[in-house]
C-alpha cells in the first residue's frame, strides 16, 4: 500500500507511471520535497535535523525504505543501521485517553515505519507521558487545534531554548495543517493550491484519507488533466478496501471523467462475497450517465449494453426521463425513427420542453413540420433553443413547395411568435410566402420588418425590391437600389430592363430556384393569408439534404458567423446551407474557407459552390475566377461556363454593348444547347444593331415553337422597321 502511495505522489509530481518508479525517483522526490519545501517549514527542517541526530527516520527515510522493500536487491539489507529511537509519545497519549481506535492506528503506523519495533504487550498499560506540556500539545493536536499547538511549541521554545518538539508531533502537525488547507482550497476551487499541497505532502495520499484523494482527483479533473484524475481514482480502486468508499470513488469519478476514461476504473470492479459485482447498485445510474454523455457527443460509441440497460429501464420503469435520454441519443446519431419513437413515449408519458423539442426535430426531419409546430408551440418559450427549433419548424412549414394550406389560427400564432421573437429569418420567409400567394403588399411589409431586425439581410432587401416593383412603387425600388448600391448586383439590376426581368432572374439563379419568384396563383389559400396581414409566411424551395440538416441542428447557418474558423468540410456544408437560404455572398465566403481543404473533392465542390454563389449574387467575373480554382467535372464546367457566359451576355446587352453580347452568345453556343431565353436575347441584340433580317429569322424560328417572348420580339422588329424610315 505504501508503495502505491509513493506511486501516486510520483504520478502527480513527475507524471511517470506507476511502474516506472525507481529508488532514485523516490529519493529525488523526497529531496525535492525537503529542499523546496516552500510551505513555510522551518519545522520540517528541524524535523529532519533532529531525526538525523537521533538516528531515527524522517518521512524521507521511510519512503526510501519502502522503495527498498519493494526492490530488495538494492543496498538495503547490507547497510548497518543504527538502532532507531521510536517516538512513543503519541502512543502513550492515545492510550492514556483510552482512544483505542487511534491507538491501533498509531501502532500500525509505527510498525510500518520501524519493522523491528515491538509494540507494548498491553498498550493501554503504557506509562503516561510525564511531560505535561507535551501532553497538552498532543491534546490540542487530537482536538484539531493546530494553530494552538504551534503556539504551545513556540512558547516552550522561548522558555527552554534547547527544547525540540518530537519529530512525530511536527510531522503530524504539518500533515494535519496541510490537510485542512487542502480541503479549504478545494472548497474554494483553488485547484492549483490543492495539487501543490498534495504534491508536497505525499503522506496525505493514503487510503485512510480517501477524501483527500478525492479532492486531489477532482482538482486534476477541474484543471483539464483527466489522465491524472483517473490515476488518482485508479489508485483508490487498486489499493483501498473500504466498500462504500470504493463505490463513492466511482460515483465521484463518473461526475467528472469522460466515458472512455471511466471504463478503466470500472475494469477494476470486484465481486462481493455474495457474488454480486460491487458497483451493481449504481450500474443503472452509470448507464444513464453514459447515454447522456452520448447525447452530447455524437461520435461517442457507448457500449450497447448500457444503451440496452436504459431501454429496459425506460420500458419497465416507464420514466419519461429515460425515454428522453434515448431519444436524444438516437437523434444525435441520425436514427430519426428510433428517436421519434422514444421522444413520443416521453412526450406521452410526461410532456416536457425537452420531449417536445426532440419530437419536433424528428418531425421536421421527416418532413412533418405542421405537427412539429403544433407539438412545440406550447413549449416555445421554455428556452432559447426551443424557440430556435420552433422557428425552424415554422420556417420549414412555410417553405414547403408548393405552399401548403394552413389554418388561419396557426398562421396567426406563428406570425405573433415571429414578431415577438424578432426572428428576421422567419419574417423573410413570410415575405416569400406572401409573394407566393400573390400578396405583394403583405410581402413588402414582412420583408421590411425582416430588414428592420437584420439590416444586412440582402435576400429580404431583394424581396422587398421585387415586391415594390410588382406594386409599381418605382421610387421605392430606387430607394432600395440606392441603399444597397455596391452591395447587391441583383438589386442594382432589378427593373433595368423590365421586359427582361424574368430572364435575368432565371439566368442568375441557375439552380432549382429558377422559378422562385414566379408568383403561383393559389386563390384557395389567399383568404387565409390575407388575414395574416402583419404576419409571416415563408416560401423558398429547398434542395433537400443540406437544408434539412441545417434545420435539424437547430441553428443551421442562420446565425451570421465568421466562417474562417471552420473546418473545410464544415465550411462547405455551411456554404450550401447559405445557398439554400439565398445568402450567396456569405456562402461564397464559406466556400472560400472550404477551398483550403486538403481533399481535392472538397476543393472541387467548394469552387463549384463559390461560382454558383457569385453567379447568384450577380458577380459574374468573380464566378469565372472561382470556376478555375479547382478542376471540375465536364458537366460542372459546362454548367458554370453556361451560366457565366449567359450572365456576361446579359450584362453586355444591358450595357447596350450588343456586339459583345452576341460574342458571348456565340461562345455559349459552342458548349451548350441553345436556351430559348438566350436566343431571344440574341434576337434583340441583332435588332438593336439594326440587323433586322437576322433578328427576324431568330424570332420567327422561336415563335414557331410558341415562345411568347419571341412573338413579342417579332412584333418589335416589325415595329422598328416600320418606324425606322420615318425616323430617319
Amino acid at each position, binding site marked *: 500500500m505504501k508503495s502505491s502511495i509513493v506511486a501516486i505522489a510520483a504520478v502527480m509530481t513527475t507524471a511517470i507511471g506507476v511502474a516506472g518508479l525507481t529508488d532514485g525517483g523516490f529519493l529525488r522526490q523526497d529531496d525535492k520535497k525537503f529542499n523546496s519545501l*516552500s*510551505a*513555510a*517549514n*522551518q*519545522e*520540517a*527542517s528541524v524535523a529532519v535535523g533532529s531525526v538525523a541526530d537521533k538516528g531515527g527516520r524522517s518521512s524521507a527515510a521511510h519512503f526510501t525504505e519502502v522503495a527498498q522493500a519493494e526492490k530488495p536487491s538494492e543496498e538495503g539489507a547490507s547497510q548497518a543501521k543504527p538502532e532507531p529511537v521510536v517516538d512513543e509519545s503519541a502512543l502513550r497519549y492515545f492510550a492514556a485517553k483510552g482512544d483505542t481506535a487511534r491507538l491501533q492506528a498509531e501502532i500500525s503506523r509505527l510498525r510500518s515505519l520501524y519493522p523491528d519495533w515491538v509494540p507494548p504487550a498491553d498498550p493501554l498499560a503504557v506509562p503516561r507521558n510525564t511531560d505535561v506540556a507535551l501532553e497538552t500539545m498532543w491534546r490540542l493536536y487530537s482536538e484539531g*487545534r*493546530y*494553530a*494552538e499547538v*504551534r*503556539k*504551545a*511549541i*513556540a*512558547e516552550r*521554545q*522561548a522558555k527552554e531554548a534547547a527544547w525540540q518538539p518530537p519529530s512525530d508531533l511536527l510531522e503530524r502537525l504539518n500533515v494535519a*495543517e496541510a490537510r*485542512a*488547507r487542502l480541503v*479549504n*482550497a478545494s*472548497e*474554494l*476551487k*483553488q*485547484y*492549483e*493550491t490543492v495539487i501543490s499541497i498534495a504534491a508536497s505532502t505525499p503522506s496525505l495520499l493514503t487510503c485512510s484519507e480517501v477524501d483527500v484523494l478525492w479532492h486531489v482527483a477532482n482538482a486534476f479533473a477541474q484543471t483539464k488533466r483527466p489522465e491524472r484524475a483517473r490515476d488518482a481514482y485508479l489508485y483508490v480502486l487498486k489499493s483501498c478496501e473500504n466498500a462504500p468508499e470504493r463505490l463513492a470513488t466511482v460515483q465521484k469519478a463518473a461526475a467528472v471523467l469522460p466515458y472512455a476514461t471511466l471504463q478503466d476504473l470500472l475494469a477494476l470492479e470486484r465481486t462481493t462475497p455474495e457474488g454480486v459485482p460491487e458497483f451493481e447498485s449504481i450500474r443503472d445510474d452509470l448507464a444513464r450517465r453514459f447515454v447522456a454523455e452520448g447525447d452530447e457527443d455524437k461520435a461517442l460509441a457507448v457500449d450497447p449494453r448500457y444503451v440496452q440497460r436504459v431501454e429496459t429501464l425506460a420500458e419497465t420503469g416507464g420514466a419519461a426521463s429515460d425515454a428522453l435520454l434515448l431519444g436524444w441519443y438516437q437523434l444525435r446519431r441520425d436514427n430519426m425513427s428510433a428517436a421519434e419513437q422514444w421522444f413520443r413515449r416521453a412526450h406521452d408519458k410526461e410532456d416536457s420542453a425537452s420531449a417536445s423539442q426532440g419530437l419536433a426535430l424528428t418531425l421536421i426531419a421527416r418532413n412533418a413540420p405542421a405537427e412539429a409546430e403544433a407539438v412545440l408551440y406550447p413549449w416555445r418559450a421554455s428556452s432559447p433553443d426551443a424557440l430556435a427549433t420552433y422557428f425552424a419548424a415554422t420556417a420549414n412549414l412555410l417553405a414547403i413547395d408548393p405552399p401548403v394550406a394552413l389554418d388561419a389560427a396557426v398562421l396567426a400564432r406563428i406570425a405573433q411568435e415571429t414578431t415577438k421573437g424578432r426572428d428576421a429569418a422567419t419574417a423573410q420567409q413570410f415575405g416569400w410566402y406572401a409573394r407566393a400567394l400573390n400578396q405583394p403588399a403583405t410581402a413588402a411589409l414582412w420583408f421590411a420588418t425582416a430588414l428592420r431586425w437584420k439590416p444586412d439581410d440582402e435576400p429580404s432587401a431583394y424581396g422587398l425590391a421585387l415586391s415594390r416593383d410588382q406594386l409599381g412603387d418605382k421610387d421605392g425600388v430606387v430607394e432600395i437600389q440606392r441603399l444597397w448600391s455596391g452591395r447587391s448586383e441583383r438589386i442594382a439590376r432589378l427593373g433595368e430592363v423590365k421586359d427582361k426581368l424574368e430572364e435575368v432572374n432565371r439566368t442568375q439563379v441557375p439552380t432549382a430556384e429558377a422559378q422562385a419568384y414566379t408568383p403561383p396563383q393559389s386563390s384557395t389559400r389567399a383568404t387565409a393569408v390575407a388575414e395574416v396581414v402583419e404576419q409571416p409566411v415563408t416560401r423558398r424551395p429547398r434542395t433537400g439534404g443540406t437544408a434539412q440538416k441545417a434545420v435539424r441542428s437547430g441553428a443551421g447557418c442562420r446565425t451570421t458567423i465568421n466562417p474562417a474558423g471552420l473546418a473545410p468540410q464544415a465550411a462547405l456544408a455551411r456554404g450550401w446551407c447559405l445557398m439554400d437560404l439565398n445568402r450567396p455572398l456569405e456562402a461564397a465566403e464559406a466556400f472560400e474557407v472550404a477551398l483550403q481543404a486538403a481533399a481535392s473533392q472538397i476543393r472541387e465542390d467548394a469552387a463549384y459552390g463559390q461560382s454558383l454563389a457569385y453567379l447568384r449574387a450577380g458577380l459574374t467575373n468573380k464566378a469565372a475566377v472561382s470556376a478555375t480554382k479547382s478542376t471540375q467535372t465536364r458537366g460542372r464546367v459546362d454548367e458554370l461556363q453556361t451560366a457565366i457566359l449567359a450572365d456576361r451576355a446579359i450584362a453586355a446587352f444591358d450595357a447596350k454593348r450588343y456586339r459583345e453580347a452576341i460574342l458571348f452568345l456565340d461562345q455559349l453556343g459552342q458548349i451548350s444547347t441553345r436556351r430559348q431565353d438566350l436566343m431571344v436575347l440574341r434576337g434583340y441584340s441583332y435588332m438593336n444593331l439594326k440587323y433586322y433580317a437576322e433578328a427576324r429569322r431568330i424570332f420567327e424560328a422561336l415563335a414557331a415553337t410558341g415562345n411568347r417572348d419571341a412573338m413579342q420580339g417579332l412584333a418589335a422588329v416589325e415595329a422598328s422597321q416600320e418606324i425606322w424610315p420615318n425616323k430617319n
Partner: protein
Amino acid sequence: MRWRTALFAGLLALMIPVAAGGAEEGGSVSARDWEQYKARFLDAGGRIIDDGNGNVSHSEGQGYGLLLAVLAENPADFALIWSFTRRELLLRDDGLAAWKWSPTETPHVVDINNATDGDILIAYALVLAGERWQREDYLQAAARIAKAVLDRAVLDHGGQTLLMPGVSGFGTADRPDGPVVNPSYWIFEAFPALDRVAPSPRWKELSDTGLWLLGAAQMGSRKLPADWVSLRTTPKPAQGFPAEFGYNALRVPLYLVRADMGDRDLMARLRKGIAGSDDALILSDAAGAVQTSLMDPGYRFVNHILACVLDRVPIPDSVKVFSPTLYYPSTLHLLGLSYVKEKRPECL
C-alpha cells in the same frame, strides 16, 4: 535618499535584531498592551476579529496581528496567527490571500479576491519575524507572497508603477475610470523589507509612486487624498466610492511617519487637513466639509504623532496609555505607540 537610509536601517536591524527592539525590555509594543489587545481582538485559534465589522476577519487584520506580534516580541502568538492565516486565507492559486473570512458562513472565506494591503502586511510581518527569530520558513513564505504581489498586483500605467488594491476589479479594462488605487495601501515601511526577500526595482518604484500620489491627489480645501483615487487621467476621486478622506486614508500619515517618509510640507499639509480643534481626527468630503469627528484615542493618535514628528509636541496622557476600544483604531493606536516608543521617545 530616504530609501537608502531606510534600507540601511533595515540592514542594521537584521544584523542586530535585539537592539532594534527599543529602550525597555521586550518589544516596542509592550507586553501589557499586547495582552490587552489580544484579549479583545485575537481568538484562541489565531484569528484577529474585526469587532466593528460583524466580527469577521480579513487579510489586513491578520497582517496587523502578525506585525503587532513581532513588535511585541511574541513568537508564540505570531505562530498562532500565522497558522490560522496560512490555513484559512492563504489559499489562492496565485499565492495571495483571500481577503474576507466570516465565522458564520461556510466556506468561511466569503470572497476569494485579495486585498493587496493585507498581502503586504502579512509578507512584511513574515520578513520581520523571519529575520528576528531566524525562521527560514517565514522568509520563504514572505518571498512567495511578495513575488505574487509583484506578479499580480502591480501595474505599469502611464510610465508609473502602481499598486493595485486587488488583482481584479481595479484595472484599466475593469472600470471606466480605472486604474483605481487606494493611497492607504502603500505601506511604505514594508517595501524595503519585501525587497530583501524578493529583490526587485519595483519596490522602490512603488514607493516613489506612492509619494507622488500623495503630492498629486489633493482634494478640496483641505488638500487631502481621497480613499479611492482614479488615475485614468489626473488623479481624482474614483467613481462608485464616497469622494472623501475617510477611514481608509486616515492611516496614510501613520504609515508615512512609521516609514520615515514624506517631507515636512507634506506632513504639515496632512496635519492641517485632519486635525480638529478639539483634538479630534477629521474625516472630510471632497469640498473639505467635516463629515465625522473621530474621538477614539487610536484615531486621535494620528494627530499627535504628526505633532510629535513635526514639532516635538509631547504625546498627551489621554492617548499615551493604551486601552482597547475597537479593532481598527486600537490597531492604529498600537502601531503609533510602537513607533514613538522606538523612534521618538522624547515625545513620551
